């Protein structure tokens, strides 16, 4: 690795605190640190931040495991609660049999299992149908998707001197209110800023504004590189807005278009639930 300089300083510190330096590098780093009080301070600050992040990470992991255990327990409970056969029906059948003959159960095991599964399936479909809503499908999709954070001009990515740069930085930090505020100050926003403000509005549940922004991006001929993304988020904005037919049709088209960036992002179960939603409303 190169000598420690301002460009690679942060990488050196990370590798040091994570224990990823080899013997020679470690010696070099420790010698530099002894002569550089600022570096020493930076290392200490990074160690404190890292320890804090590891604490949070451990808590998150345990919480996620517990949540998953509880979800599994709840499914098991639901399955064991399914009646294997209606008990009330069994007794009269036995009562009418002649004395001394072997009792014949009304349902054989195969029948019981089939009946149980049928009840479970009907229950599952009923719950799905009853609880299905555009808000729920929207939330699930947005929660599952990583935020789209690209669209940066590489030569400008560290600069914050223009309002457009600030919009980009605030967007990347997830400060969506600030993105919306700064966007209002732009004289001539480009499709990139318009996309960002559309996404920010979507996150803030300002659906009309989000739809308007994504439509603008789609109408801009220069925005061909992100038109698939804009189309996908426009469909989600329609879903959030309760325009179910439009949203479902757009998402179905995205799924069937093998060239579309978001072709794979919709599972068969999700599409099936979208169709069910369309039937419901």
């Amino acid at each position: 690795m190169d000598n420690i300089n301002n460009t690679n300083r942060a990488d050196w510190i990370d590798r040091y605190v994570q224990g990823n330096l080899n013997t020679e590098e470690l010696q070099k780093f420790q010698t530099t640190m002894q002569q550089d009080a600022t570096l020493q301070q930076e290392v200490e600050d990074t160690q404190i931040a890292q320890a804090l992040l590891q604490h949070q990470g451990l808590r998150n992991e345990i919480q996620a495991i517990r949540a998953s255990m509880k979800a599994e327990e709840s499914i098991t409970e639901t399955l064991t609660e399914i009646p294997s056969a209606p008990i009330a029906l069994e007794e009269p059948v036995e009562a009418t049999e002649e004395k001394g003959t072997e009792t014949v159960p009304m349902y054989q095991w195969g029948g019981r299992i089939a009946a149980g599964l049928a009840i479970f399936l009907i229950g599952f479909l009923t719950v799905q149908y009853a609880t299905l809503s555009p808000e729920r499908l929207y939330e699930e999709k947005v929660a599952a998707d990583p935020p789209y954070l690209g669209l940066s001009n590489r030569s400008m990515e560290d600069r914050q001197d223009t309002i457009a740069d600030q919009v980009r930085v605030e967007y990347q930090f997830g400060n969506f209110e600030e993105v919306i505020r700064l966007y209002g100050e732009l004289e001539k926003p480009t499709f990139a800023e318009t996309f960002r403000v559309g996404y920010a509005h979507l996150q803030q549940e300002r659906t009309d504004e989000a739809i308007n922004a994504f439509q603008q991006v789609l109408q801009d001929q220069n925005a061909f590189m992100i038109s698939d993304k804009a189309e996908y988020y426009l469909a989600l904005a329609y879903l959030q807005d309760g325009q179910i037919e439009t949203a479902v049709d757009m998402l179905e088209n995205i799924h069937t278009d093998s060239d579309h960036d978001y072709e794979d992002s919709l599972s068969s179960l999700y599409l099936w639930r979208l169709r069910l939603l369309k039937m419901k409303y």
Partner: protein
Amino acid sequence: MNNKKIQSVYEDQDVIEAILHSNSLDPIVRHLYRTNFDSVASYIRSNSGNDEDAEDFFQEAIVVFINIVRKGNFRGDSSIKTFLYSIARNLWRNELKRQNRALMRETNYYEQSEKEERGIQDSISENEVKNQLLDLLEKLGDNCKKILLMFYYENLPMKEIFQHMGYETEQVARNMKYRCMNKLKELLNEHPEMKQNFRSLLANG
């Protein structure tokens, strides 16, 4: 092999080994819940707590326990069951003290040496210092928190992080991580006293 058998294969030594060396905590945390949650929950419920308290404090006890093991401070003088129960009991006692409430029924089912008790109290104090600073992470925003956790907790390489987060290039992700880390350091500097406490903890190992 039935489920019961699968679920009971961990001896105490296996648990310690897995915490120290395994990449996944999942099977161990599940085992700890299966074998210890009920006794801890029953203790908390019989001492003014409810089900939610039992969940929260058992989770906290596991965090403290894993940290003790990772620091090499679990000597195995008592079983994990006894040890974990003691951690949870101490955590719950502290909580009741904080709320100015007394224990309704203190039944100690498990014997604990004085030395172990002191060690547990020290680890709990350390956990509290860390918890006080967790709010700062919330001020970072979701994206920053995610990227920093992926790098510093999950130890994922930047190549994977940039794809997972949807950044355009690895360099964008690298810059973002750098900015987020600086933001976290700034937030820590705004709380010099808490930062100093944390520093002392790290220095004391």
